[in-house]
């Protein structure tokens, strides 16, 4: 870091020399302007944030220094502050004028006259006698020097170093490790015993304990290849992908919901999870693995396996989506940042997101490069993709459209037929209105009338009478149920209120009679116009009022009284029409029988590749210079040829990431795999290989493995074998005080680092030991809150908003961000789960049934239980303690667990169960 700053300074020094050459000889008048009007303002208003002094106090803002002439010319993050002679250029004047987003000084605008002074000064050439060097670098990166950082150099293969204990090494890894130990005077641990090794390897590769049969087979196999045979078996297991796929899901911040305010599930998320598991199981070459995740939709291969081709896009498609509101652009920039962060830390081991608002403080990643890279994602959309070829999607879409059409036709038939009925009634609209009014008025004044008889007498259809009654009743003066009939409804309402009923009748007042006649006549006229045949003559048009009227009572939808809705029309239809409708429904049913199956979907991404401008300080409304689309410059020269293309697509991004010349991609993945075997990577900061990350403990080993990884076709299974067949991996976990004194954290691998199982392996092991595990692969996720969820933990629902409490309690990573490693904290809530949860009690019970069946004798049961739980024979002491507990009475309360159940639970709860040596 210090070294880098120094070179930057040197670079800047050169710049200033050339700057000096340009400066004209200042004349006295110009000098006076500066001294009287400019300098005092700069000192008083600007220096507190923009000077060497401010820089020293870490108060420098925007990388801009105004206490030297050069500082003004070079400018800060937003570009040069002034361009002498050109007031229109540079950022200073606009900032003083408060005309752009950048307003300076931030608290109060300077007086207009002062701003005018600045303008005059710049116009006159910005004469500035001040000298002195700016102490901060703003624009200069010495690329050549920056590339000297180990991680930016291409990895090379190194010969095995010389060691003293020549017989110790088992394969290419060991000499590197042993040499480092010998250099420090540390002795490696003895080899682990076979039982320990099998348990370790089994949890390591498939996340499940070995069965007693597997243990016996391994102990019986005395061939030198015995362990290699075990590895072959484990690597061929479909459970391997479940174990190692999950590690990748940590990196890819896999979650099954968006990041909105409330849980918004992504229903097809599991497809990505299953894709990752399958990719590991099939040992998909790592470069292809990345290529498909970044640009599966754009690569040529595979052609017709749409799951393989597209489901990996969930790497991006399951990224954060936030609430937009009025700041959609800024929020979208945050979403883009989530993708850049996951991409750069996850795949490249670089913290590129640091450069979103300012040049990276440690690494050679200027803000410009952030926006160059982000172009790959700019304009992309996260969406649901069909996992099927376009023509199949098209067939399904057509089928869906046809279904919609047929259903609509059947529905429309009912509507049309209903209108036909409505029109028959419409002719008697006057009667309908008056009868309906009479019924409403009778009801209001509690006059007993025989409704059915009246309707029958007047030869009306009770259905339409009922509809009119409802409309009159639902109307108020302020809100008529049919606005087009406002007048009539108002009069009708008033008439209801003022009606003078006799014992068994209500007379229609004259005013209403009149209004009804008028309305009926208008309707009749409108209907006549409507019915006039078009013929050759142009059909006479309805007046707007007529049109409105017909729509309101007959031709409209919803509340229209003479237009029965489809669901009500069916009952009203004559038999023939009913038959006709049934045949239409039949057509729908037949179409449904010929259903094109629902197509699977996955969450993916489409588009992108739009060039961006620098967002000054990460603000979307403060655009700076254009950022030429492309890859990170620090990596670019290493990659075959710098792209001259105007666009930078996701495919270009995939090419750049997966290029065998990229110095980071292979190293980063090798280090991740190494970390999950040893508990710590060769680089201790697996997502940060930059200058602020940790240096590798075994740089040559890392490089050699990275090169060989690529040479073997980016095979992750090769890497597992290479690591696990090493003497380094096969060491015992025995602690050594002497070694620990020299290397307390075992960075140099003087033993295998023992560790607690992570939550997945621990929960799965409990299910496995108790015989409850449902080993089914793949498919939609289950909630861990469901008692019936006895599948492997990887099949549990993962949420950003409402993460499962069991997972969170046991250090499962926050799915909001890419995670590089898991913690291993110990909190009492975990132990409460172990002691009291239904999950544990149920598992203990199931386990106790297995133990019970093994023998009738307490001692034998203890022995069998130890074999199942720990894969070993208990000592005499353990046997005695266990048997004594089984003889104890246990609790006599109804429903209390038996002594055997309690014993079974203690085994599952024990440290030994969750510990891997």
């Amino acid at each position, binding site marked *: 870091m210090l070294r880098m700053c120094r070179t930057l300074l040197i670079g800047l020094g050169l710049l200033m020399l050339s700057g000096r050459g340009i400066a004209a000889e200042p004349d006295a008048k110009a000098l006076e302007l500066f001294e009287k009007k400019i300098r005092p303002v700069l000192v008083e208003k600007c220096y507190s944030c923009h000077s060497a002094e401010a820089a020293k106090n870490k108060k420098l803002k925007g990388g801009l220094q105004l206490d030297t002439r050069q500082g003004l010319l070079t400018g800060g993050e937003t570009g040069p502050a002034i361009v002498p002679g050109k007031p229109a250029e540079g950022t200073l004047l606009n900032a003083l004028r408060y005309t752009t987003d950048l307003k300076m000084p931030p608290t109060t605008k300077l007086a207009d006259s002062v701003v005018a002074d600045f303008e005059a000064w710049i116009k006159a050439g910005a004469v500035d006698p001040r000298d002195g060097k700016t102490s901060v670098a703003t624009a200069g990166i010495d690329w050549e020097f920056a590339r000297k950082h180990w991680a930016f150099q291409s990895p090379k293969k190194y010969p095995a170093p010389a060691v003293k204990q020549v017989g110790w090494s088992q394969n290419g890894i060991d000499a590197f490790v042993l040499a480092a130990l010998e250099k420090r005077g540390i002795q490696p641990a003895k080899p682990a015993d076979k039982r320990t090794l099998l348990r370790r390897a089994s949890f390591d590769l498939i996340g499940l304990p070995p069965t007693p049969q597997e243990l016996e087979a391994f102990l019986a196999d005395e061939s030198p290849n015995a362990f290699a045979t075990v590895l072959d078996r484990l690597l061929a297991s479909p459970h391997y992908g479940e174990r190692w796929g999950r590690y990748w899901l940590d990196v890819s911040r896999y979650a099954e919901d968006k990041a*909105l*305010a409330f*849980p918004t599930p992504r229903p097809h998320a599991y497809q990505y999870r299953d894709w990752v598991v399958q990719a590991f199981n099939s040992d998909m070459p790592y470069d292809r693995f990345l290529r498909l995740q970044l640009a599966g939709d754009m690569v040529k291969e595979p052609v017709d396996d749409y799951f393989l081709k597209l489901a990996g896009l969930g790497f991006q498609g399951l990224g954060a989506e*936030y*609430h937009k*509101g*009025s*700041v959609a652009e800024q*929020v979208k920039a*945050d979403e883009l940042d989530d993708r850049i962060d996951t991409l750069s830390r996850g795949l490249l081991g670089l*913290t590129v997101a640091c450069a979103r608002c300012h040049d990276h*403080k*440690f690494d050679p990643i200027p803000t410009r490069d952030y926006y160059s890279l982000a172009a790959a994602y700019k304009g992309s959309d996260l969406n649901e993709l069909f996992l099927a070829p376009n023509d199949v999607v098209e067939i399904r879409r057509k089928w869906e459209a046809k279904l919609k059409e047929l259903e609509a036709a059947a529905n429309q038939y009912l509507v049309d037929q209903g209108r036909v009925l409505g029109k028959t009634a419409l002719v008697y609209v006057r009667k309908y209105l008056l009868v309906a009014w009479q019924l409403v008025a009778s009801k209001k004044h509690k006059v007993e009338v025989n409704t059915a008889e009246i309707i029958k007498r007047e030869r009306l259809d009770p259905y339409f009478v009922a509809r009119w009654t409802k409309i009159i009743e639902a109307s108020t003066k302020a809100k008529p149920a049919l606005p087009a009939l406002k007048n009539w409804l108002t009069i009708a309402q008033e008439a209801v209120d003022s009606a003078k009923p006799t014992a068994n009748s209500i007379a229609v007042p004259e005013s209403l009679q009149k209004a009804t006649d008028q309305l009926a006549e208008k309707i009749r006229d409108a209907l006549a116009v409507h019915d006039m045949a078009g013929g050759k003559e142009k059909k006479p048009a309805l007046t707007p009022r007529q049109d409105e009227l017909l729509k309101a009572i007959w031709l409209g939808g919803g509340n229209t009284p003479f237009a029965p809705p489809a669901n009500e029309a069916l009952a009203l239809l004559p038999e023939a029409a009913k038959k006709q409708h049934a045949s239409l429904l039949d057509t729908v049913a037949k179409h449904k029988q010929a259903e094109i199956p629902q197509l699977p979907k996955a969450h993916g991404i489409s588009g992108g590749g739009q060039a961006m401008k620098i967002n000054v300080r990460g603000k979307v409304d403060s655009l700076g210079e254009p950022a030429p689309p492309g890859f990170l410059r620090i990596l670019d020269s290493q990659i075959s040829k710098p792209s001259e293309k105007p666009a930078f697509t996701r495919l270009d991004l995939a090419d750049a990431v997966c290029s065998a010349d990229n110095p980071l991609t292979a190293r980063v993945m090798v280090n991740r795999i190494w970390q999950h075997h040893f508990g710590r990577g060769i680089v201790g*900061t697996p997502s*940060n290989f*930059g200058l*602020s990350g940790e240096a590798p403990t075994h740089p040559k080993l890392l490089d050699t493995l990275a090169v060989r990884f690529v040479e073997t076709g980016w095979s992750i299974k090769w890497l597992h074998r290479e690591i696990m067949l090493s003497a380094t991996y096969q060491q015992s976990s025995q*602690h050594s005080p002497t070694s620990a004194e020299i290397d307390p954290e075992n960075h140099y691998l003087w033993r295998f680092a*023992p*560790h*607690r199982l992570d939550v997945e392996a621990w929960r799965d092991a409990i299910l496995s030991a108790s015989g409850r595990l449902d080993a089914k692969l793949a498919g939609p996720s289950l909630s861990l809150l469901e008692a019936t969820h006895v599948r492997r933990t990887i099949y549990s629902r993962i949420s*950003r*908003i409402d*993460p499962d*409490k069991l997972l969170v*309690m046991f*250090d499962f990573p*926050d799915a*909001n*961000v890419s995670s590089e490693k898991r*913690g291993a*904290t*110990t*909190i*009492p*809530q975990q*132990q*409460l*789960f172990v*002691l*009291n*949860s239904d999950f544990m*009690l149920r598992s203990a019970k199931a386990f106790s049934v297995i133990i019970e069946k093994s023998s009738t004798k307490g001692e034998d049961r203890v022995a069998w239980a130890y074999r199942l739980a720990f894969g070993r024979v208990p*000592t005499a002491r353990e046997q005695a*303690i266990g048997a004594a507990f089984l003889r*104890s009475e246990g*609790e006599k*309360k109804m*429903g*209390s*667990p038996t002594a055997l159940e*309690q*014993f079974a639970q*203690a*085994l599952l*709860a*024990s*440290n*030994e169960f969750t*510990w891997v040596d």
Partner: protein
Amino acid sequence: MQTRREMLARMGTGLGITGLASVLNESGSAAPLGSAANPLALKAPHYKPRIKHIIHLYMNGGPSQVDTFDPKPALKTHEGKRPDMIAGLKTENTTLGLKPSPFNFPKCGKSGLEISELFKETSRHADEMCVIRSMYTDVPNHEPSMFMMNSGHLQALRPSYGSWLLYGLGTENQNLPGYVVLCPGLPVNGAANWGNRFLPGVYQGCHLNLPVDFSPKDVIPHLENKGLSAAAQRNQLDLLQQMNAIHQEERKAEAPLDARIASFEMAFRMQTAAPEAFDWKSEPASVQDLYKGTDGKMNYFGSSCMIARRLVERGVRVVQIYSGAGQPWDTHGANDAQHRQLCGATDKPIAALLTDLKRLGLLDETLVLWGGEFGRTPASQGGDGRDHNHWGFSAWLAGGGIKGGMAYGATDEFGYRATEKRVHVHDLHATMLHLMGLDHEKLIYRYGGRDHRLTDVSGVVLKDILA
């Protein structure tokens, strides 16, 4: 049944030093464990702290400052108008003209601090309260602003301040979680609000969803064994610890094994300690009455305030009480009616909390913080609502180290934008840490190759509000 001590005697040297010390510690208070084994053990602050606990009354959704703690008479004279100064202040939605508050702001206490009549009970404590009227934050959306208020960053990338405090100071009571979050259901952002992020998981907030009538035995998940009595479970635990001791004989150097052995003992004690701590119904009726709502009934917020008092009394470091699930204060419509209702439900419990803390001498060592993730617009949204407003809002503090009876900073004449002595959330955080005896520039954690702070590269301690 064997006693614990007998069991330990029989286990001989099975436990490592730290584990033994922890198991022997019966009180559960003070620092029972070496920090290697127990990351929650008490740690020394940077300097003498003014307070030990924080109770954060989190009015999620964003209360309206001009209806609660920031009186703006100019809204009446400019009702319905849109002054030029509003033009550039973009909020989530489109707003209409200025909408005056229908509520009165009487002068309260000796100080004469003006507080809305909606907080009639709370305002009796005016002389203990410092209202910051010039709060501001960065974005007018709930999610980022919630993250900012909780973690000092707009995205879900940084640990919550509660996690930082546990990391920096540990906690006094090892039998209770050190950072308790009370919310019925989940607020916006869910559990990400109190996440530990890159800090160890032990520092995450412990969210408890406690309706008024919860059973203290269910307060923390899995607190009760449904099959075994305490004595029988002790017996089973003794068996388990014997197994663990034997397992550890060959592995004396492995600290995580020690920690887990000790943790089982803590869990066992927690089964008794936690129900006791949360059992607010054991308080005398006179105390319970204090916390009831104006309707004379105990509501969720009242019982939560009482629990918070009981928790800080027992040494819990941070208690956050969310006003409710989702975003109760998000009054885009019917702002006045909703404020009446929300204040009605919380006013008396808040006053009770202050009274009760004072009565027990706990107010001196506790900071009570009231506020939302932002405020609301003085202009109306849709006539009767108010939109989000991050440009300016109010929060208040009371308790140890706080100067009471004062208003700090100010918004413009309409209450839109913080103008005088502007206080960013970072400054609030810096001040909270300061009160806890921590220098916000020195409380750092190295992750991913660089040092991180709660306040990032900002934050100024508000010296003027400190007593």
